[in-house]
């Protein structure tokens, strides 16, 4: 590639010369052909030497792919992005592609008590679970935090447990008698079921896995591809944890980790026992200050620093750039708070499903952080804090979160609640003369600078159309993937192409930004899920 560029520069140079000296065209041609040949020969010799150096370096156990051991610096070395000074150790990746959507309603202030009384666990939060799991509790039962609520009949060994202690007040059913959720009215003081924690340095992997499945932390693990609760016999090639979230209004994980450093570290050590490879930690190199010590000083992990706009914090992007999923490999991912829960289990012998939840969005009076537990009731969380008018409540962020009812519960994995305006208004010539500021990657819509916080609403800003614009998805997805061609392969059910184009490296949150920017307003996330389901059925 470099050679090509170089030759091309040469051609341009010679062309400029020939443009000046008209008439002597054929002489110029001859000279420049000779010059090109001479330079190519020299280049080839230097290239040979460089390659020999690399082979030699490889023989000495150095990785010539990661560091340059060649004769001269490559283009990538010359233009390598500079690491921030605090980003020591591990690899560093900087992305240009992507887009930070700066919305109003960022959480601020210290962590407040959530004062949530009701919690629920939903079977529908787990991909691939049978619609009617076996519920082991009845309405009126008293449960402790860590007691089993239900299990999947296909995999009875994996328990789904209660995040709090209290009384089971409802087992709600949805379509076709499926279980919608199991609701618990929490005690004032949470009591915990005691587990006999094994010493992780002594037990074998199988015992550890069974212990995790029994205690209910197993479902915290997400298996890629397809986002599943892993089967007990799967050994992941690597485990990835992204320690920062770049999604719009996402909680600051430095707030979450503070005070939980030892639990987080313990969790990492447990995870290290589970994989045949390593535990990889994605660290934030976007700010001018280092991330919290709990992350930066984590032990027993491979560290990777990431800088650049959203989706730099998405674990899928981080996997793609550190140890991409190959063939039928399986990798696991966990969130920061999931690791803390896992660590706490081994420190205390109890299932602590504490969650710091960020209440965000422009339709809240005071966006803030609250301390509560998994599956908290939305009504309790936003009581007295929500503005009048038609709002949308989202469990998660505005890009890949799920719309939920105001009397519903946060998702199993979600640590963010977003409330924004419904945009069901007509706008006169809205496409031609946008009167209110709106976030956009397009140069046709005025940008108000990086620090401007946009008001979000749910209007589609136009109608759905066929794919027209090209290169748009690629410009916000820092991966070597062609999203538009992948989507077309999914729509046409072309399995070979789907896999070849890397469908297994993606999940909904990775293409969410592509969907946001899509000029033709196509539903990329649902197309992707449809493709993932199809591929999963085939394999």
């Amino acid at each position, binding site marked *: 590639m470099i050679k090509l560029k170089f030759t091309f520069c040469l051609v341009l140079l010679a062309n400029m010369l020939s*443009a000046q000296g008209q008439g002597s065209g*054929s002489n110029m041609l001859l000279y420049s052909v000779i010059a090109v040949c001479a330079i190519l020969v020299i280049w080839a010799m230097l290239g040979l030497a460089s390659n020999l150096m690399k082979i030699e370096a490889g023989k000495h156990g150095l990785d010539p792919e990661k560091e340059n051991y060649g004769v001269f610096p490559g283009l990538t070395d010359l233009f390598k992005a500079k690491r921030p000074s605090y980003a020591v150790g591990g690899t560093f990746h900087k992305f240009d592609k992507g887009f930070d959507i700066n919305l109003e309603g960022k959480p601020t202030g210290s962590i407040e008590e959530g004062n949530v009384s009701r919690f629920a666990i939903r079977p529908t939060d787990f991909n691939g679970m049978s619609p009617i799991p076996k519920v082991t509790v009845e309405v009126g039962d008293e449960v402790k935090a860590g007691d089993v609520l239900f299990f999947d009949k296909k995999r009875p060994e994996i328990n789904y447990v209660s995040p709090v202690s209290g009384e089971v007040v409802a087992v709600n059913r949805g379509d076709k008698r499926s279980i919608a959720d199991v609701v618990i009215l929490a005690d004032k003081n949470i009591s915990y079921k005691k587990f006999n924690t094994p010493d992780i340095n002594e037990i074998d992997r199988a015992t550890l896995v069974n212990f995790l499945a029994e205690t209910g932390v197993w479902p915290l693990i997400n298996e890629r591809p397809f986002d599943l609760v892993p089967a007990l016999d799967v050994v992941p090639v690597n485990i990835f944890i992204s320690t920062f979230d770049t999604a719009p209004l996402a909680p600051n994980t430095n707030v979450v980790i503070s005070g939980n450093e030892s639990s987080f570290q313990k969790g990492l050590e447990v995870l290290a026992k589970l994989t045949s490879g390593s535990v990889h930690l994605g660290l934030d190199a976007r700010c001018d200050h280092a991330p919290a010590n709990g992350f930066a000083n984590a032990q027993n992990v491979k560290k990777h620093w990431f800088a650049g706009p959203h989706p730099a914090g998405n674990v899928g992007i981080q996997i793609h750039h550190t140890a991409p999923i190959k063939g039928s490999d399986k990798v696991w991912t966990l969130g920061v708070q999931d690791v803390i829960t896992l660590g706490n289990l081994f420190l205390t012998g109890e299932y602590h499903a504490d969650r710091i939840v960020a209440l965000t969005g422009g339709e809240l009076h005071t966006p803030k952080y609250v301390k509560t537990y998994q599956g908290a009731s939305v009504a309790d969380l936003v009581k007295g804090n929500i503005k009048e008018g038609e709002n949308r409540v989202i469990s998660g962020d*505005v890009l890949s979160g799920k719309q939920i009812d105001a009397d519903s519960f946060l998702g199993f994995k979600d640590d963010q609640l977003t409330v924004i305006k419904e945009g069901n208004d007509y706008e006169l010539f809205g496409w031609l003369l946008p009167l209110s500021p709106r976030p956009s*990657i397009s140069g*046709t819509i005025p940008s108000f600078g990086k620090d401007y916080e946009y008001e979000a609403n749910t209007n589609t800003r136009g109608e759905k159309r066929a794919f027209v*614009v090209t*290169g748009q998805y690629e410009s916000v997805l820092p991966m070597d993937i*062609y999203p538009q061609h992948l989507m077309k392969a999914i729509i046409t059910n072309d399995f070979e192409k789907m896999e070849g184009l890397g469908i297994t490296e993606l999940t909904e949150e990775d293409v969410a930004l592509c969907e946001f920017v899509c000029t033709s307003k196509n539903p990329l*996330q649902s197309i992707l899920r449809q493709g993932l389901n199809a591929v999963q059925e085939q394999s």
Partner: protein
Amino acid sequence: MALVDFFKKIEPDKKKSPLLHTAYDAFFTFAFTPNTVTKGGVHIRDGMDLKRLMVTVVISMQLCYLFGTYNIGHQHFVAAGQYLGFLEGFHLKLAHGLIQLLPIFVVAHVVGLGIEFYFAAKKGHAVEEGFLVSGALIPLIMPPDIPLWMLAVAVAFAVIIGKEAFGGTGMNIWNVALLARVFVFFAYPLTISGDQCWISGYEKIADGAASTYGWFHTGFFNSIFDWLGLEGFNTANKVIDGFSGATPLALAYEGGWDKVTTVFSESQMLWGAIPGSIGETNKIFIVLGALILIVTKVASWRIMAGMVVGLIGTTWMLNALGSTPFMTVTWTQHLMMGSFLFSMAFMATDPVTASSTNTGKWIYGILIGFIGILIRVMNPAYPEGWMLAILFLNTFAPTIDYFVIESNIKKRLSRA
């Protein structure tokens, strides 16, 4: 909003009159962004939609429209040997330009949009915006004197065979506007090539040929000008002796750059006061339009850059050979003649028909530059190469993408 309520009240029934409803829907969504909200997937959407995308392209070519209209009149009076200064006889030139351009614009849109509306109603979906750009481009690439029936046939051919047959906006293989032009080019070659077609308002371009002023010239505008105390159209206007109507390209083919500069100065070519298709003569305004498209990221800069690279590289090779006068024309001189810049800014960058991968866009652009210059310089049958080069590469764009995609797939498989 009261206005919305009013429009909602007059909405025609979809089942009873689908065509009327489609038309209503098109105009309603033109006036109001719909109140639909996101469902599943993302909750907020980028403010950009296809309407805005298309209108950006249309806006970026407005300067070409303004200049093109005036230039029709200017060329007309230059042929008559009157008002040789560019701004002399301003009102007459503008009036003549409008008389020529407006019917072309209206016919292109009525025929094109009519077909679009019909197919949209038939398929039961909304009218797609693709023709906004095609409709704006078609008048700019036609000669000013094109018979309107011919234009109508060409537009109908392009929209029905070139677009709707493939499934509508986003599915077509060839650029719709170029398809309309290529139809005229092969079906009625005399109206769009040679020296006769670029000057409007005369029976033919020959010494002493009479002007063909109609009612709009002598009746409508002359009475207005009369009332304002301005000079009117003189029916005695005729082509002066020795006027050929030849374009720079035709001259360059005969005698290289030297022959071109005996008739046109460089600044004249740059500013576009030369005969040619309506919108492609003013290079400055086209570059401005291209810059708008690049800055707003509406069109791919890779394709544009690729075309320039292709043009420079190929011209340099031809310069080195230098066996005909045209081959000695340098790349800067090539940029000043013909419709390279216009094709680069507005034609080749059509995202639907161009390559869809970033690597593919470079290859696509460079190949257009290469083939277009070859046709321009080497082929006596075709005075200009871009239309054919772009349509040719439109055909091969999916093949280019295929190889780019295959290499991505191979790379991924080799990891396993």
